């Protein structure tokens, strides 16, 4: 990642009533990537997001949006940001369209055409003239995104974007966010309390606990050296265990009529070929993608990530 970061969080500290809520947090987000922000409740996720968008002051350190400090040049920094902080709260007594007109007037260079373009983009065309109070939560989320995208930002910040959505809505949202990052080159910051969801959506995940950044983990880059737990549903079990004995670093384990063995990614097809050669019936092979969660549990000291 040699690109210029879209968002730089530099040694940011937040003190509220003498209590250090955020302690020297450091990270950068680059164009075209989805960055997941994870942490237990009260870890300071929302506080950090509120500091990025200028809703909360920064006690120490600085946040740069495309090189503009949010502290000293709020207007220039906010020009590049589209955000939904927590719930997509809109003016309920106005129509979806008037809500967008409202936010268009607050930004430069957003004309009627752009409003219609965004409406088309989020698929709200049929209901845009209805009052927002008649919208479902999913539609409000979409209107929220429309509002955030109006002024063509470089950075999109979504706090709990899938909160309250049904599975289909979550899938749609995920697809949508990936699209914005990959095709439009936006830097997207997402916070969520669902780790499994973050894995599907994000390129990198940062873990925050008690105001400290514990680490940033790459998600999709599965290096060939990295091992994962693989379970084989095979018959007969004992024979298969013997076949797989010399593979992997640890001995294969038999559990729940399955063989569980730690393998690298490259070893999985080799193991399958070996089993097939010995005429063992293979009913299924599953790679347990628990490594990320395990990493986080390790990072947060075994505490549950909520």
């Amino acid at each position: 990642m040699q690109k210029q970061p879209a968002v730089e969080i530099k040694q940011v500290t937040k003190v509220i009533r003498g209590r250090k809520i955020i302690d020297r947090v450091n990270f950068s987000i680059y164009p075209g990537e989805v960055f997941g922000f994870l942490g237990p409740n009260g870890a300071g996720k929302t506080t950090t997001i509120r500091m990025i968008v200028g809703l909360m002051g920064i006690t120490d350190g600085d946040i740069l949006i495309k090189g503009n400090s949010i502290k000293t040049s709020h207007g220039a920094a906010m020009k590049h940001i589209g955000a939904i902080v927590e719930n997509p709260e809109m003016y309920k007594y106005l129509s979806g369209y008037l809500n967008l007109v409202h936010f268009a007037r607050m930004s430069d260079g957003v004309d009627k055409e752009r409003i219609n373009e965004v409406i088309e983009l989020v698929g709200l065309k049929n209901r845009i003239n209805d009052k927002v109070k008649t919208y479902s939560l999913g539609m409000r989320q979409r209107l929220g995104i429309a509002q955030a995208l109006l002024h063509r930002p470089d950075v999109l910040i979504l706090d709990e974007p899938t909160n309250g959505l049904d599975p289909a809505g979550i899938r749609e949202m995920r697809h949508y966010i990936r699209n914005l990052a990959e095709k439009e080159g936006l830097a997207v910051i997402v916070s969520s309390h669902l780790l499994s969801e973050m894995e599907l959506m994000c390129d990198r995940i940062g873990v925050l606990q008690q105001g400290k950044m514990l680490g940033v983990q790459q998600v999709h880059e599965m290096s060939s050296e990295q091992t994962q737990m693989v379970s084989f549903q095979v018959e007969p079990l004992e024979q298969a265990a013997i076949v797989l004995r010399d593979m992997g670093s640890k001995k294969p384990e038999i559990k729940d009529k399955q063989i569980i063995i730690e393998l690298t990614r490259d070893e999985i097809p080799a193991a399958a070929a070996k089993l097939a050669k010995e005429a063992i019936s293979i009913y299924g092979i599953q790679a347990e993608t628990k490594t990320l969660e395990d990493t986080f549990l390790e990072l947060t000291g075994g505490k549950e990530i909520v």
Partner: protein
Amino acid sequence: MSKFIGLIRNEHMKTFRRLSTWIMFGIAAALLITIAAFTAYYAEDSSGDWRADTEQQMQDLQKQVENGDVEAAAVQQDLTTMQYQLDQDIAPVQSDSLASYMESVMYYCAPFLILFIAIIAGGLVSTEFGTGTIKLLLTKTPSRFSVLTSKYVSMFITTVIFFIFFIGFSFIVGGIFFGFNGFDAKSVIFDNGETVTNNLLASTMRDYGLNFVQTLIYATIAFALSTIFRNTALAIGFSIFISMFFPTISFILSRYDWSKYILFNNVDLTVYNPGNVPAVDGMTLGFSIVVMAIYFVIITVITWFSFMKRDVTA
């Protein structure tokens, strides 16, 4: 600048797309029509010759004094006024005339104007916090200063619109009920032992202007409380409570000289009109304007400072 106008248009859209604002206009219209209907219904019949009527009234009053029914001093003002009207050939204002109706509307509806504007001003900032929309409002390019200033300017314009509505609507309703005439109607007022005449419509407009100042001060207080405490009920409740009950409190405090420095003793500038007296002796129009200006600056500085510096946790 064009963006600032955009912000004001946004605030206006939010105020005038709300049902509650139109309910206020509805109540105001109903109120004005009701006052007109009552005035028309209860208007006293006059014989057409006001001179004869006035002379008759004077004779009745003098008879009452001779019989000892009333104190001579109590009716002296009335008698002087009537004599003045006869001498100067000024017809007394009929209650069922456009000018008189517009004056009563101004008099009776001034508290309603404060009520309506305080309700609007008291919710301008706090409802944004209540619904969470403040987060969207403050995460755009305009600074917090322009967002708050646009809200205040919008509140000012809304106040002007309400005043124009009351004046315009009462003129139309009054004209329909009582005829579009009598624009030169004069009232005779007893001021400092002297009788003076007043064009009734002109003095009504002057009092609207003075009430505008008072309404704006209460609206500013509602706006300030709404911004500082982020609580609509508190903002509206406090400003309306003070506007309604301060006259009583003022009366109790009037024996203390320092009470003239209380803001609410200075907001009603109609006390400096001919024939009226201020709450504390020695208060002047200039004094009240200075006191209001000082309070206004202090309140706005605290309000803007609070809005610009504090974290948004809504």
